[in-house]
């Protein structure tokens, strides 16, 4: 037996390569720091080429409308949603085009993901219901997850479209003095957004820069749409399974009026009337909570995703290139968690809706 030759070096690289990598990495850190917001303020004397300077981010909540298609306003978040749709459909088609009993890598990964969600559905909703709910739950999961993950791809939020529009007469024009590499320029505020004023053909117009694609989850309409769908889904299966019994959970007037009726027949029972009133009140609360769910669904996802996007923007602005990396990892995790929460809560609500309350009580 001969001893295996010891490999010199560290982390799978030989020492010279490792040293080069470390030097390059440190260089990126230093240049990134100098180019970022913190570095620029700390060392104003250092001047770097303008393409290195990261502009100050201007996050805004409403998704801008890029153009109109058949009278329908197309926002950048809608484009992102369609991109996710196309991505998922293509993946699904590619995987299931040639299904094999002994799966390849892609098929195995896809089957693992779907099988995992299917097992969750079965474990929460039971065998039969789990199978019925699986498509919707899984679609919610995939749509939310890939909306979040695809928005981490470079190009989301950084590719911009530029439009030129006339300045509205009532808009306020202000002059920004020259600073650093930036010459003096005029800006105009429209709808809380700052637009630069440029000269085209001797006419002053405002330059409207808009992101071409933006994570669909960061537009409140997308989470609201999914939440709304989830609400309809729950109500549909509640009505389908329990029929009027489902509505009775929310409009529980029966016991109250029955006890009132008994009062007229001479059997006065205060407790009955009281508990009937409580029933109505509880039903009302349940009814209210159903709509509150929609709101909480919407804002949980919207808030998390928007905050994540702003966090990435700020991190990339303060210390570009390096500092944002850990946050990207965090965003991957958060996207996954939000997708899981959204889909599993829907699953739990629909399971509750198809489970008769009176059945539970007995």
């Amino acid at each position, binding site marked *: 037996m001969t001893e295996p030759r010891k490999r010199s070096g560290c982390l799978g690289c030989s020492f010279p390569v490792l040293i080069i990598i470390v030097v390059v990495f440190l260089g990126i850190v230093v240049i990134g720091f100098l180019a970022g917001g913190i570095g620029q303020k700390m060392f104003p004397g250092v001047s770097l080429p303008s393409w290195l300077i990261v502009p100050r981010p201007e996050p805004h909540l409403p998704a801008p409308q890029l153009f109109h298609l058949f009278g329908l306003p197309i*926002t950048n978040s809608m484009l992102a949603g*369609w991109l996710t749709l196309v991505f998922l459909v293509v993946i*699904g088609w590619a995987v299931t085009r040639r299904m094999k*009993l002994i799966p390849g890598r892609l098929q195995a990964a896809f089957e693992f993901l779907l099988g995992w969600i299917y097992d969750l559905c079965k474990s929460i909703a039971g065998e039969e219901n789990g199978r019925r709910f699986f*498509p919707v739950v899984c679609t919610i999961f995939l749509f939310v997850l890939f909306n979040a993950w695809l928005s981490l791809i470079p190009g989301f939020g950084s590719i911009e479209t530029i439009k030129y529009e006339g300045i509205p007469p009532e808009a306020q024009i202000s002059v920004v003095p020259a600073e650093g590499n930036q010459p003096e320029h005029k800006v105009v505020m429209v709808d809380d957004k700052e637009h630069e004023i440029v000269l085209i053909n001797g006419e002053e117009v405002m330059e409207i820069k808009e992101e071409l694609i933006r994570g669909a989850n960061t537009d409140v309409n997308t989470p*609201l749409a999914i939440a709304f769908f989830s609400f309809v889904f729950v109500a549909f299966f509640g009505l389908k399974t329990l029929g009027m019994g489902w509505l009775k959970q929310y409009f529980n007037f029966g016991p109250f009026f029955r006890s009132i009726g008994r009062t007229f027949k001479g059997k006065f029972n205060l407790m009955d009337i009281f508990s009937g009133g409580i029933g109505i009140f509880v039903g009302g609360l349940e009814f209210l909570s159903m709509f509150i769910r929609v709101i909480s669904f919407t804002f949980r996802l919207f808030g998390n995703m928007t905050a994540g996007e702003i966090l990435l923007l700020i991190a990339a602005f303060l210390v570009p290139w390096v500092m944002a990396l850990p946050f990207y990892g965090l965003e991957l995790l958060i996207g996954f968690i939000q997708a899981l929460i959204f889909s599993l809560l829907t699953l739990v609500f629909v399971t509750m809706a198809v489970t008769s309350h009176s059945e539970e009580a007995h």
Partner: protein
Amino acid sequence: MEELPLKLGINLPVLITQVVTFVILLVILRFVAYKPIMRMLDERSKRVKDSMEQAEAVRQQSARAEEEVRKQLEAASREGQERIARAVRAGEEVKQKAEEEARKEADALVKRARTAIQQERDDAISEVRREFADLTVLAAGKVIERSLDKEQHRDIIEKVLEESITHKKD
């Protein structure tokens, strides 16, 4: 309240579009992904179940076969033992019989030999007698030829006997 939805950007056409997008995604994925994958998962779990059942059946069968073989081996071994014992017994018998026969034969031989010896002795004796008689007759003739006394008589007999011995010796 008027300001809030505007600032968030809630927009009915966009909302409806996103709902429609989601529904389209649901419908397409249902056909493209969920149905085939569920079918595949079901088929695979069915196959696994089947093959496990099959394996169980095979296992049982092989256990049964093993038991069978063991029994057969046992029976064969028992039979072999029996046969060996029987053969040994037969051998013993053959040996005994052979011994007995040998003994009988030997006895017969001895007996026959004895008889022959007896016969021969008898023959010899009778011959001796005959010769003796002859000699006696001869001697008597000689005696008659000569008048002899008792002593001579005896001498003559002895002489004759001696002669006969020497005669016999020749």
